[in-house]
């Protein structure tokens, strides 16, 4: 605006004594932001490399990659719900117990009552939502800290599980549920030879190729749109290198999976959830309001964000996702047990924080939480492959969690100067 510009010039002599010539903070800051944002992925890469070397490559064998995904799927699903709650500045300690109780509910419906599995699944997810609504009510509308509400929930829903199940498990689950948790896409299109790598499932490879193509398309369109709005974008070679790297990694994982038993169904489910929730947090008004609440609650209230509603619904969402994880976990073990989901909440919370969420809220990404969960999964898996006792695995995970949060606070302190 020219009026302001001239006004600015008119008072230049007044402000001459002020520190107007302060150094531009941009370059250093941009570097630390990049370090902060990509640090987690670099760490993930290094951890994979470390264990690949320590296990003589066993970590990256087709079956092992498949195992890591299937064994951690329920934690990753929980981590998606948890990251939303942590971004809003809250916590949910009850998810392990909710996994147990929803697993038990699904077992009663599918095994004892013999309901058709799709109906039983829907009822279980609704039950999870109601559990979330119960907790969301106390947190959002009654104002009890989520720590307390969900600590109570942890006890309540564990007690409920034990009441439903008595002291024994219920099983076995119907085949479709077991396939969802444990099974793989079947070779609809047969195998193709990959030279020295042997045969691989063509369908899986095609899905991988479509995923990569979709990624390239999406990135390219974003780039064009940004250019159209005259925003800064990466130089083309760097853009190309990033896309290429992402594509190669995705295809490498898919090829290994295709060489084993095709794509795990939970991977397909997870991919859908990650995509959906990433869009939710980045592009949907509701998702963006979660960040506003966690970043500055008062400012969000005074900007017209309906804070109570948003909080309520992210707890409902957590309940539904915990129910999904509950069904998958029970299906994987082929029975719902009274101790199912013990300490899952800690793994999900750790995944979120390792993945770059801030303790004060307002910061975090779905992809970060997934990466955090996978870091823990790779550590678990790698440590067991090299025959380390479980106490040592726990020790390493504890140190990684502490280091990740220390790094987060350190970068923030540097940026805050």
């Amino acid at each position: 605006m020219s009026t302001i510009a001239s006004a600015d010039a008119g008072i230049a002599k007044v402000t001459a004594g002020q520190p107007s010539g302060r150094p531009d903070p941009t370059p250093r800051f941009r570097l630390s932001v990049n370090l902060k944002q990509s640090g987690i992925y670099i760490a993930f890469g290094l951890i994979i490399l470390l264990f690949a070397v320590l296990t003589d490559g066993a970590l990256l064998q087709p079956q092992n990659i498949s195992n890591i995904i299937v064994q951690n799927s329920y934690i990753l699903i929980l981590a998606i719900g948890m990251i939303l709650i942590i971004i809003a500045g809250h916590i949910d300690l009850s998810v392990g117990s909710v996994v147990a109780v929803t697993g038990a509910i699904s077992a009663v419906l599918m095994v004892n009552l013999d309901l058709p599995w799709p109906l039983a699944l829907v009822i279980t997810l609704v039950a999870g939502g109601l559990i979330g609504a119960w907790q969301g009510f106390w947190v959002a509308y009654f104002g009890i800290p989520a720590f307390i509400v969900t600590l109570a929930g942890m006890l309540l829903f564990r007690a409920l599980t034990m009441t439903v199940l008595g002291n024994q498990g219920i099983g076995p689950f119907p085949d479709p549920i077991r396939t969802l948790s444990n099974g793989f896409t079947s070779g609809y299109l047969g195998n193709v030879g990959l030279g020295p790598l042997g045969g691989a499932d063509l369908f899986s490879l095609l899905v991988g190729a479509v995923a990569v193509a979709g990624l390239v398309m999406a990135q390219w369109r974003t780039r064009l749109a940004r250019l159209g709005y005259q925003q800064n974008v990466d130089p083309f070679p760097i853009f190309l290198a990033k896309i290429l790297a992402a594509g190669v990694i995705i295809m490498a994982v898919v090829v290994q999976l295709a060489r084993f038993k095709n794509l795990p169904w939970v991977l397909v489910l997870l991919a859908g959830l990650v995509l959906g929730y990433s869009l939710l947090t980045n592009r949907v008004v509701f998702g963006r309001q979660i960040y506003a609440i966690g970043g500055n609650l008062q400012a969000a209230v005074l900007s017209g964000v309906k804070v109570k509603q948003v909080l309520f619904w992210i707890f409902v969402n957590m309940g539904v996702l915990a129910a999904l994880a509950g069904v998958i976990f029970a299906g994987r073990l082929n029975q719902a047990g009274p101790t199912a989901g013990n300490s899952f909440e800690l793994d999900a919370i750790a995944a979120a924080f390792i993945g770059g969420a801030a303790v004060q809220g307002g910061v975090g990404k779905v992809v970060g939480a997934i990466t955090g969960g996978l870091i823990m999964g790779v550590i678990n898996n790698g440590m067991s492959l090299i025959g380390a006792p479980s106490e040592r695995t726990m020790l390493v995970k504890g140190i990684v969690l502490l280091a990740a949060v220390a790094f987060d606070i350190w970068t923030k302190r540097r940026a805050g100067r």
Partner: protein
Amino acid sequence: MTDDILRMRGITKTFPGVKALQDVNLSVRRGEIHAICGENGAGKSTLMKVLSGVYPHGSYEGEITFDGRPCAFSNIRQSEHRGIVIIHQELMLCQQLSIAENIYLGNEQASRWLIDWNRTNHAAAGLMERVGLRENPVIPVGDLGVGKQQLVEIAKALSKQVKLLILDEPTAALNDEDSAHLLDLVRGLREDGITSVIISHKLNEVAAIADSISILRDGRMIETLDMATDQVTEDRIIAGMVGRDLEHRFPPHESTIGEEVFRVEDWTVHSPTQLDRVVVSGVNLRLRRGEIVGLAGLMGAGRTELAMSLFGRTYGANISGRVYVNGRQVQIKTVRDAIDHGIAYATEDRKRYGLNLIEDIKRNVSAANLSKLARRGWVNDHEEFRVADSFRGSMNIKAPSVLSPTGKLSGGNQQKVVLSKWIFTNPDVLILDEPTRGIDIGAKFEIYTIINRLADEGKAVLVISSELPELLGLCDRIYALSEGRITGEVPREDATQERLMQYMMKGQDELR
């Protein structure tokens, strides 16, 4: 030669970009009650913080001599050790602890390592009797009213062998009866040889109790009046506080005033914590298109409370009254309602209530009107970028890009982000609470220019400010608020600082 208990010489205290105190001298005679007067932001509290060591020695220039010896306090403990105790406007008591525990907090009555509760409670009872507080020393402080809590603070000061008692706005939150009791108590302490310094806006109280009055304005000591020898009237004090140095700090502006757009009738608000306390009482306001209207009032007059209660009832309880937007009566129950009816409110404390400091400029600008950028729930983040970037240009926000976090910006640029956020909601009425607080002169000029531009676009702007020159330089019409009531309405032509100050202060007596 008079016997001065305290001498402060050449005190200069600088904050980044602001000289809060400039070469201030203050002498306080032993055993007197010395009042310090000045407008909000004149530097009264800063001076007392320098004296009590809140700002450590070395962070200011100048010399302090207390009780004949020089002072170089690096924290409050050291000043308290010498007998200087400050009682802040916001009481520093632990609500859940007992009266006795609060009195001896940090000074526990212990034999070896164990607290001697009998001794603590007994000694506390003695101090409480001295200040006229008849309560059981073991009940929690939170059960007492504000007036009695004030007495606990004084008892606490007495327990530290106080020689110089500093009271910052001691009666601001008290009713008449409690105020009178407190002032009697301060007189009683004078008989015991305790010197008091009182910071107060209530000039009638000052005139009644003080032996001397020092007046600060814009960080400078203007004068010290001796009540015994000088002819001191309230008008005389006001003249000193206001001064007459209006410079050309405001962009020239002629308002084109249109039809009425916002009207408030008989607006009454009670305190949410003390339901029987009326914070805003029977306020009537009207704003017209293209008009810049000021709201003047001292701290605690209810300015922010009025604004926030109007803005979606974000403050207050038992709110009554009527609001009309464009001639139609509207019910505004939530912030969303307020925004939807074209009302915007930029808060007084932008860091705490206005901005998400960890997010970038772009997301702060869009925060109050995200749905405008969204189609069926999907935010168009490219459009968001474009909108934010255009505000960066039009508001002259000095940042490398709209992706810079707002926490890294200067106060003036942060304020421009807040204004952008509200302008993006396309309001008819903007309520700006202390829009230039804590920002430098250059940025102030830019904010004034933006406010003028908003008025030219046909919006009604209500500016709340503690700085009277700002209201006089900016506004077409100014309301004065005192103790929750509108005590005056002055058009630009007739407005002077003296006149406004009289409305802002004298209204208090006339209302009773």
